[in-house]
């Protein structure tokens, strides 16, 4: 079972590496969207400093959403999902492997790009550490919740809008607590409470979402 799990993760990473720029679409969007803000709202450093945590998190959230459609779609379209579903790995673990691969190819690049963008937006250096921690806790939640939306819409064409409508309401709390943590650190209010809620949310969705996504995929496989 361990072989089958990492087999799937490894294959997805290999596909992403060979997919060229297409696999980095989330990070490219993240960088472009965040760099547009100083151009749009003006170079006033105090204003940018104030909105930086919110801008970074909103951009990360939208970037993740952009990448959700492909989580199961390719495997469903070419029949790979049938092959994988007939393996010894339970569908819940298949989903977890796909989520891990999705996070490694979308969440992790966002986290790597975030510090440079934070500097660009003149974010207070006191918030940097917490920004990274909030992204480390928050982006896996985005992948977990996103898997449910991706699994529910897997048989549909042009599902981008539907996924957004399904997952966005569930993304809002992540956004609120993550930005709350970063601003808490910047204004000296402490970030611990918000980060703990994020950590709790991560565990909650880690248990719940693979089960829901697997149920949705089972329906799609009929």
């Amino acid at each position, binding site marked *: *079972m361990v*072989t*089958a799990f990492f*087999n*799937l993760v490894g*294959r997805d990473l*290999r*596909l992403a590496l*060979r*997919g060229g720029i297409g696999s980095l679409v989330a990070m490219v969007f993240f960088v472009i969207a965040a760099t547009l803000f100083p151009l749009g709202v003006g170079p006033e450093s105090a204003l940018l400093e104030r909105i930086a945590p919110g801008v970074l998190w909103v951009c990360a959230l939208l970037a993740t959403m952009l990448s959700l459609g492909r989580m199961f779609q*390719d495997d469903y*379209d*070419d*029949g*790979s999902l*049938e*092959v*994988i*579903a*007939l*393996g*010894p*790995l*339970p569908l819940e673990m298949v989903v977890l492997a796909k989520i891990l691969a999705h996070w490694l190819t979308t969440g992790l690049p966002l986290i790597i790009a975030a510090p440079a963008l934070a500097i660009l937006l003149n974010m207070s250096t006191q918030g940097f550490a917490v920004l990274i921690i909030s992204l480390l806790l928050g982006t896996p939640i985005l992948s977990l919740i996103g898997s449910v939306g991706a699994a529910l819409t897997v048989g549909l064409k042009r599902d981008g809008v539907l996924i957004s409508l399904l997952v966005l309401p569930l993304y809002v709390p992540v956004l609120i607590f993550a930005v709350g943590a970063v601003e808490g650190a910047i204004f000296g209010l402490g970030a611990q409470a918000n980060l703990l809620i994020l950590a709790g949310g991560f565990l909650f969705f880690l248990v719940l979402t693979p089960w829901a996504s697997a149920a949705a995929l089972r329906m799609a*496989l*009929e």
Partner: protein
Amino acid sequence: MSDGEKRFEAENVACIRGERPVFSGLSFSLATGGGLILRGPNGSGKSSLLRILAGFLKPVGGNLGWNDVDPQEAPEIHRARTHYVGHMEAIKPTLTVNEHLAFWARAKGFKRPADNILQALDLDPLADVPGRFLSAGQKRRLSLTRLLATPADLWLLDEPSVTLDVQSTARLEDMLAAHRASGGMAIVATHADIALPGAEVIDMAGYRIAIDTLLGAPQKAAGGPTAAGEPDYGEW
């Protein structure tokens, strides 16, 4: 492949797809080394039956049994002994032929695929070619090597010879014969002539009328869908 006598049976299996009755009352029994050919016009339920037998789809009626155990009660065991090759080839444009085989073997829980299986379908010159450069027939052949990559008792093949040339179809027949000789079973849905000596043949068309008459009468009485099974949407 596990030894000993095996028996795979279906009894009175019925299938409904999207409120449309497809077939009912279908029964068969396969023993060790058995073969079954499914025939019938498009939409007669050949693919649906294979999906039921693979465990993707639940039958709305009837029973399946592997040595008298319902596969639904032990889905992991049924998955492990089943190979399903459907219409879709499961081939990624950026992975090579060998990488596909390695992935499929590990996806079935094996460390590596069986040795020297590319020769069986004449794919060895293409071992390092990525999926996007393969022709339709080559993709189909690669998809079929999945059957040889890891052992499984039950082969479920949906139109396996589509896009295959004459030689490749012959090679597929050899594969099927060797599989059955070693005690495996094969169920093949096809329009083409695939030699499966001694195989039972089921014509799906024969199981269609039964359910129409079965469901037609009470629904007509209720003023709902018509006897043909078509929903009545009324005037627009």
